[in-house]
């Protein structure tokens, strides 16, 4: 196992909170009536971010936005390469996606391959009217023609750097850090 050698903190807890509030408002701006909006969090950290966004909608607009979770393991394109030994987590979408506007939520946007897998999986659940993408961090280096609609923070990185998003639900603290695998 390679180790993460931290270089700098990018976001602290307060900044993550404010960023999510801003992103929630951007969703609202793009769809003021919140018509047929659903949130789909990508396992693992995307799910917690989606839950927080759902809570902000409830608090500020007093609306309940449906929330689903997506585990893309079974749709990965690297299942048969480089020693991937994935853990299969749960996909849970308890509502019909047909004609909904999906906001896909993930922590870090990097190559775009996770999103490709997520889109394939979503389409097996129905035919949404539109799919948009929300990420906390966009670190560049796309390998597919994919872009995010709502971006928390753009962080220019080099290929050998990594971005770690830590969330209190899983990691005991809210922060985003940049570092290198050593």
């Amino acid at each position, binding site marked *: 196992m390679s180790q993460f050698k931290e270089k700098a903190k990018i976001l602290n807890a307060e900044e993550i909170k404010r960023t999510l509030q801003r992103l929630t408002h951007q969703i609202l701006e793009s769809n003021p009536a919140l018509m047929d909006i659903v949130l789909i969090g990508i396992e693992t950290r995307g799910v917690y971010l989606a839950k927080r966004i759902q809570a902000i909608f409830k608090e500020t607009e007093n609306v309940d936005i449906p929330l689903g979770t997506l*585990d893309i*393991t079974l749709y990965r394109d690297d*299942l048969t390469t480089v020693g991937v030994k994935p853990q*299969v987590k749960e*996909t849970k979408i308890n509502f019909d996606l047909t004609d909904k506007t999906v906001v896909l939520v993930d922590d870090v946007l990097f190559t775009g391959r996770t999103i490709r897998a997520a889109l394939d999986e979503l389409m097996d659940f129905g035919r949404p009217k539109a799919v948009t993408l929300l990420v906390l961090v966009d670190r560049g280096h796309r390998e597919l023609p994919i872009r995010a609609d709502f971006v928390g923070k753009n962080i220019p990185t080099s290929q050998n750097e990594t971005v770690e998003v830590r969330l209190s639900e899983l990691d005991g603290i809210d922060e985003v850090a940049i570092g290198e695998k050593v």
Partner: protein
Amino acid sequence: MRKSNNINWAKKDLLDLENLSREEIELILQTAASFKEVSTREVKKVPALRGKTVVNLFYEPSTRTRISFEVAAKRLSADVINIATETSSVRKGETLIDTGKNIEALKVDIIVMRHNYSGAAVMLARQLKASVVNAGDGWHEHPTQALLDMFTLREKLGRIEGLNVSIVGDIAHSRVARSNIWGLTKLGAKVTVCAPKILIPPAIEQLGVRVTSNIEEALAGADAINVLRMQFERDSGKAFPSQLEYFKTFGITKERLKSAKKDIIVMHPGPINRGIEMSSDVADGENSVILEQVTNGIAVRMAVLFLVAQANDYIKIKK
């Protein structure tokens, strides 16, 4: 914080439960829980095993296990070929190893095998680079059946640890019983086996089970009862004077269940001999989870196929 993510599946085959650790068994059950959702989707298919080929090689008749494996493989997008040996070159005298190597030469990734000889799956797995999944070998083990029984128990009761589980029927000739005993005891359940004395193998207590020939004793305090099929094709029937007598002495009836816990879970690996192991009103009654077992079998077999395929890919890359 979430734990349990540290353990990985590293075996290319699934041959038995005897040689699995508690953690490995729990990993299969956990993975199966994730796979169960796939069968509830409108598109009941995920691309996880796209491009893989699975051969079902069955040396004994089987409907539900073979179909369950076939459905599982297809829901993972694998290609499936079924070989029933009655209509194959096995009839011309080809040995098991030769058959296996020929199948492997077709670039098949996973062989799911049922064989009437105990140990056949282990022997084949040693000879092949392809993954081998034991779908029942003689009187030895039937690991996926026990896994789906445990999955069903865990789903119904939330745990395995500390449960009282009674297995009733032909213990001597039953691979289902043996796999269940290994799996349940590893996960901390207390297992009782119940059968006419002649159908209880000597020294079975050494596996850590309680033995009785009294059905009331097996039912008392049990959280679940797993009723085995009387295997008339495998000599079970010679052990007692008549089927009616077996039913009278060991058959599970509504009347008998009155002495058991009210919400006792009744399982059966199928196919049921109605009126021999259990009465119809029990088989179709509220305590029965027999059809849920069939549904859960798909999820468990999807998990097993997925895990062995991943592990085998990993092994090949490392070399």
